C-alpha cells in the first residue's frame, strides 16, 4: 500500500511541478532584439533569490517588511526590457511570442491601454480558482519593449509597491489602471 502511494505521488510530481511553472513566461524569443537595442535589461529573481530576499530583508524596515510580505510565496520575478535608438526595431511578431503564451487557459487580460503618447500597456493575470497565481505586464512604445513576469501568488493591490524595487521598472501600472477605470 505504501509502495502504491509512493508510486502515485511520483506520478503526480511532474504534474504538480508543471502547474507551478505555468505562470512563468518564456521570454527567450525576444533575445535576438538585444543585438539591435541601445539598452537591454534582464532581471532574474528566481525562486532561490526570492528565498534569499526573504532571509535578508529586515522586518524593522517598513519598506523591506512590505516587500517581504509581497514576495512571500512568489516563485520568481522576471523582467526583460529593450530600448532602441530608432523606431521599428521590433515587430508585432516579437510581441506575439509573449501574447501567445498569455492566451493559454487561466490567463485573463485585466488592463489594455493604448495611447499614441504612452504606447501600449497590457496586464494579464493567471487565475487558479479565485486566486491569482501569476502576472504578466507587456509595455511597448515606438522605441521600447518591456515584459514583466511575476510567477506565483500575487497581491494585485500591493503590486505597485514592487515598481522600482528588486529591479522591477516603473511601469506606471497604478496610474494607468486608474486612468483606464476612469475611461470606463
Amino acid at each position, binding site marked *: 500500500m505504501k509502495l502504491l502511494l509512493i508510486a502515485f505521488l511520483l506520478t503526480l510530481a511532474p504534474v504538480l511541478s508543471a502547474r507551478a511553472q505555468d505562470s512563468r513566461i518564456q521570454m527567450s524569443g525576444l*533575445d535576438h532584439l538585444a*543585438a539591435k*537595442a541601445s*539598452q537591454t*535589461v534582464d532581471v532574474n529573481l528566481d525562486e532561490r*533569490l526570492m528565498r534569499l*530576499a526573504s532571509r*535578508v530583508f529586515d522586518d524593522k524596515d517598513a519598506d523591506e517588511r512590505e516587500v517581504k510580505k509581497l514576495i512571500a510565496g512568489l516563485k520568481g520575478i522576471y523582467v526583460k526590457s529593450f530600448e532602441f535608438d530608432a523606431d521599428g526595431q521590433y515587430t508585432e511578431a516579437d510581441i506575439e511570442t509573449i501574447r501567445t503564451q498569455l492566451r493559454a487557459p487561466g490567463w485573463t487580460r485585466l488592463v489594455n491601454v493604448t495611447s499614441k503618447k504612452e504606447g501600449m500597456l497590457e496586464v494579464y493575470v493567471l487565475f487558479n480558482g479565485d486566486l491569482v497565481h501569476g502576472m504578466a505586464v507587456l509595455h511597448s512604445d515606438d522605441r521600447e519593449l518591456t515584459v514583466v513576469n511575476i510567477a506565483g501568488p500575487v497581491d494585485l493591490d500591493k503590486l505597485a509597491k514592487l515598481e522600482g524595487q528588486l529591479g522591477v521598472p516603473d511601469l506606471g501600472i497604478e496610474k494607468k489602471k486608474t486612468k483606464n477605470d476612469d475611461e470606463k
Partner: protein
Amino acid sequence: MKAIATSILLIAALSTANVVQAKGDDFNSVVKMIEQYYRVKHDGIPFLAKAGMKVATTAARIKGGEVRQLAEAGSIKLAVFEDQSFAGDVVRFRSSLNEALNDTWMPLVQTISATDNEQVYIFIKDAGDKFNVLVITIDQRDATVVQVTLSPRNLALLLKDPEGTGKAITQEATINDQE
C-alpha cells in the same frame, strides 16, 4: 595492461581535479574568459590582504546619499582591464558567460547595450551566512571584474537596487585598489 589502466585512472583523476578547480574559482575563470573572448589582458588581480585592511576605512556612496561600506573586509577580488578594445558580439559573450556561471551562481541583473558596447552583469552565490557577489562591467575601452562577500544587510541593498548597489561595489573595489 595494469600500467595502462593506472595511467587512465590517473588522467581521469587529474581531469576531475582540474574541473573542480575551475568551478571553485569562477572569478579567475571569468577573467580568463574575457581575455580569450576579447583578446585583452588584465592589469592585475590584487589579492587583498592589502585592500582588506583598507576596505575597513572605505565607504561607498550609494543611492539616497547614504554612506556605507559594502564589501566585507578582505573579501574583494578585483581584475581591471584598462584602455583596450572590447569590440565584439555582446549577445554571444553574454550567452557564454551565463553558460559558464549559471550552475553555481544566480544571475540577478544583466544590462547590455549592443550599440554602445556596454555590459553589466551581477551574479549572486550563497556562502553560508554571507553572500558572494560577482559584478562584471565591460565598456568600449575598459572592464572590471569584482567579487566581494556581502553581509545579509548589504545583500538586501543589492536586491532592492541592483544597478545602483552594483555600481557602488565596483566603485568601492576600484577605489581601494587605487589607494
